């Protein structure tokens, strides 16, 4: 039985292969954790330098911010940090892609907002704040995006149960007499 991993993307560049973006990043910020999986380039940057790294990458041609997202590594085997921010970048001219990851931790997870670089980040960061409770410093309008304003939890965190904590059943009902 062949393992599924050796059937696809054998031609992807090995992690040691020279990459101009990697070299530029490492020249500016020292050695970074860089990896390639299934042909996708990923780089891990320290959270406090994330804004500068993304600004540099934008200058280097990654003009499209595809997505800002987050993963809660609470139950992930071998994980040392709690939240992993994910910035998916793409270039509309050279069609390259790059995934930038940065880790933040409790008790007050925070990272610099990239809204000054891409306006696309505005709602994406609001959603991450809503779902994971990560504070984006410098965000112009950090409100909840999906959940109601009065909601207190951050539902995509791994310690939040699938069926909720009873918010649905304890929802305040306004009756006609008390409206």
């Amino acid at each position, binding site marked *: *039985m062949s393992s599924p*991993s050796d059937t696809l993307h054998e031609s992807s560049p090995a992690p040691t292969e020279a990459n101009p973006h990697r070299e530029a990043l490492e020249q500016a910020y020292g050695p970074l954790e860089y990896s390639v*999986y299934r042909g996708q380039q990923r780089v891990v940057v320290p959270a406090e330098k994330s804004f500068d790294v993304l600004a540099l990458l934008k200058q280097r041609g990654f003009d499209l911010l595809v997505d800002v997202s987050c993963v809660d590594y609470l139950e992930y085997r071998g994980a040392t940090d709690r939240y992993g921010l994910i910035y998916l970048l793409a270039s509309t001219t050279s069609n390259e*892609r790059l995934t930038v990851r940065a880790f933040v931790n409790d008790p007050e997870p925070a990272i610099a907002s990239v809204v000054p670089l891409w306006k696309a980040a505005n709602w*994406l960061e609001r959603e991450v704040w809503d779902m994971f409770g990560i504070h984006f410093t410098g965000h*112009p309008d950090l409100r909840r995006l*999906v*959940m109601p304003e009065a909601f207190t939890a951050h539902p995509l965190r791994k310690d939040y149960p*699938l069926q909720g904590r009873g918010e649905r059943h304890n929802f305040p009902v306004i009756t006609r007499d008390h409206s």
Partner: protein
Amino acid sequence: MSIAPAEHEAHPESRSEDYLWTLNFGPQHPATHTTLRLVLKLEGERVVDADPEMGYLHSGFEKIGEHLTFNQYVTVTDRMNYISPMANNVAWHHAVETLLGIELTPRGSYIRTIIAELARISDHLLCNGAVGLDTGAFTFFLYGFYQREVIYDIFETLCGARFTNSYTRVGGVSQDFTPLVIEKIRSFLKTFPKTLDDMERLLNRNRIFVDRTKGVGLLTKEEAINRGATGPVARASGVTRDLRRDEPYLAYADLDFQVCCASAGDCYARYLVRMQEMRESLKIVEQALENLPAGPVNVGIDQRTALPNKKQVYSTIEGTISHFELAMSNRGFEVPCEETYAAIEAPNGELGFYIVGDGNDQAYRARCRPPSVLHFAMFPHLIRGHTLSDVVAVLGSLNIIAAELDR
């Protein structure tokens, strides 16, 4: 325009101005077509600012994705974009297969290409139809809806469901094409161009429609890139990015088609791009259908991902073992502890899934990159300075699907 575009979506100064009329548009309104809400600040009939709100259809799709297996979750992706569910099925399993490292059989990838393009046609018919409907062209909408029904009929013949198809599986699809399906698609390919010609004759030079959409909701190329626009919205603004051409997935590398672009960036350009894309989709479907490779539709038994067919289960020991192991909850796929992102060119933009695998056949995290969110976020930018009647034209041309917006 008398109103200068502001830097950010939220402007404190316009909120404090008490002479502005506040109009609540939605969450239930025939012209929103879906459940979303806009709080409009009006000065007379002119929209000074808009505050879009979402979340009315939030159903925790991403949370559910962490509790359903890769094959089960496809039913949720149907509900995510109910205008083109087939495209979402393809997007989800494309992402899963990227994570698992599965390469489809040629027939499987051609079949997925065909259904994804049919889904694109049905989406563009509805989207353009809705723009026409909102600007007063009811006939145009009915022309589009009739053809959508034909596509639904093809899907029903193919997999038994008209609307929520759940057609794809990890490593393949649930049903192979039958001669009847191929015949129905062929007859659709023959009849549809005529309807498309009629639709273009109805609206392309229609004075009312052109006046309502030309120059409305302008999005420049720089703004489109900066605000993360993808799909027809970006291409109507001159961004020549199409994942089908730029990162060929499925069978697109073998097929000949044009990437439809416009430079005007207004509602009319978005309408034209969608009309033209339907013609290109027809070309793709035709080529793929005529060159449909023979052979198995699902990946082989040795990959242990797609369920073997009945004959294999009953007559071969590998088939029996594979079927048994896939049905057992503690066996199943070999999932790497890794993270991948894979996207397809969905009808309304780049639809991608960022999947984190942790060895189980459920995703540890199944992030959906919804094009609707980014398009809805740029709505205040597009509508500022236009009149109230332009709200529906702009909203319709962005093709926002609320279930995908809120997930």
